[in-house]
């Protein structure tokens, strides 16, 4: 899906977090990497229509992101979001978390929504967990439910905001495995991530954001093998320091 960013900038209370970001590419799987505070999550929220940029234009799939609230809600419904902490609704069971948006937003019947939710839960290894509330699930299970909710309406693209940052290492692997499987089935996604192995091997392309600017961007294999900018070299060098 084509994503076009033109001079995108964003400021929180006068503090710029993004400035002059340009991007124009056909995205199937894209990792956004970079140091904390580099504007990665902000950029993802702008692309997802959760935040309006203070500057620039964003076109997704050939159409500019709408500004009017009702149209924005319809736009967001075509995407699937997964947040760092999952963003599951605390007051709903795992099954309802998946089924409610299917009914309320996508117009599925009660039975069809339930069937789709149970099907996804089973597929993601969560059989029998449908009646549990998020607080009763492990971090990895919560994240898999969140991914199930995101893919349930068959969105055009998934937007993942550090989906494994809040997880213990063993859960990180189960979530990353799941995302790789989805990718192999042709699911498109943009993922903000600190997992460099995932960015390098499971994402076709990678964008490196540093200090609110897009410092580098290209095919993952190339960018990781031959980082051009000193910022990226320094960033990757730091990560390698403690790797096994």
């Amino acid at each position, binding site marked *: 899906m084509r994503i076009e960013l033109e001079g995108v900038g964003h400021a929180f209370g006068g503090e710029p977090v993004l400035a002059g970001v340009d991007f124009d590419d056909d995205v199937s799987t894209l990792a956004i990497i970079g140091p904390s505070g580099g504007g990665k999550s902000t950029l993802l929220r702008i692309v*997802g229509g*959760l935040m309006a940029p203070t500057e620039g234009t964003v076109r997704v799939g050939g159409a500019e992101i709408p500004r009017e*609230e*009702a149209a924005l*809600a*319809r736009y*967001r*419904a*075509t*995407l699937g*979001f997964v*947040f760092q*902490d999952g*963003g*599951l*609704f*605390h*007051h709903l069971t795992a099954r309802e978390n998946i089924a*409610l*948006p299917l009914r*309320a*937003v*996508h117009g599925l019947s009660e039975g069809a929504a339930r069937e789709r939710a149970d099907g996804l839960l089973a597929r993601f290894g969560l059989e029998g967990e449908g009646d549990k*509330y998020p*607080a009763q699930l492990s971090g990895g299970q919560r994240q898999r439910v969140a991914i199930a*909710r995101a893919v349930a309406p068959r969105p055009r693209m998934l937007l993942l905001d550090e989906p494994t940052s809040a997880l213990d290492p063993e859960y990180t692997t189960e979530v990353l495995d799941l995302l790789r499987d989805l990718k192999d089935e042709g699911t498109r996604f943009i993922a903000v991530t600190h997992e460099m192995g995932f960015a390098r091997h499971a994402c076709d392309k990678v964008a490196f954001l540093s200090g609110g600017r897009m410092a580098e961007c290209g095919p993952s294999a190339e960018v990781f093998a031959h980082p051009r900018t000193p910022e990226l070299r320094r960033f990757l060098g730091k990560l390698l320091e403690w790797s096994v």
Partner: protein
Amino acid sequence: MRNPFVAGPDGRVTPAQAVASYLIVCAAVIGFFWLSLAMAGIALDFGFVARFRQRIADGLLLTLGISAASLVASLAIGVPVAVGQGSRVLPVRYLCDLYVKLIRGTPLLAQIYLFFYIVGTAWGVENRLVAGVIILSVFSGAYIAEIVRGSLSSLDAGQLEAARAVGFTRAQVLRYVVVPQLVSRTLPALTGQFASIVKDSSLLSVIAVIELTQTMQEISASTFNLFGTYFVLAGLYLVLTLPIMFVSRWFERRLSYAH
């Protein structure tokens, strides 16, 4: 066998343990009062209950009616005030803030006198019952505003963002996420507030609303049975408030999905 008077290490209490300990505690409390009565040389006489049962029943019903009407009205006051305290329009915000501070910072008794004899007289609220419900609602509304404001501020921004992210419209965010989460957080406290309203309504006796307390005071005055009437009075309030507190606890357990 484990100690019948100590909860298990996991906090578990068996029904038999609960009943046994509760009975002992009740017996101790009753024993204390019984002993006090004996030491003070007071003999209780409940003979008046049969004689005045119609009036007592009327008073009880009126107390319930006033409390129920005040609960509804105080919700209608408290919820907008809670929202108003977060308003970007500053006079609205400070008005709501001042209202909550004035009401919570002054005794209900003073509010009843001041409202009934000054505001009520000036604006023609002569019906004592109506005045009583208004005063009690204004009083309780401030406490409800605090309860609602507390749960409004505990709404997690991540939940609202997730709600927008799944494609909910503004109305759907309210309906499917904000309202259910607010209700489950406020319902236990609101039910507890209802128990407070029931008790606080007893102060309306000072403006001669013939609710339960006023009824009992009149009976006490005509029978000179002060202690008997106040014992029955306290017992009847407990009959009203204990079930409400029980429901409040039930809501609390029922709705604690987050733990």
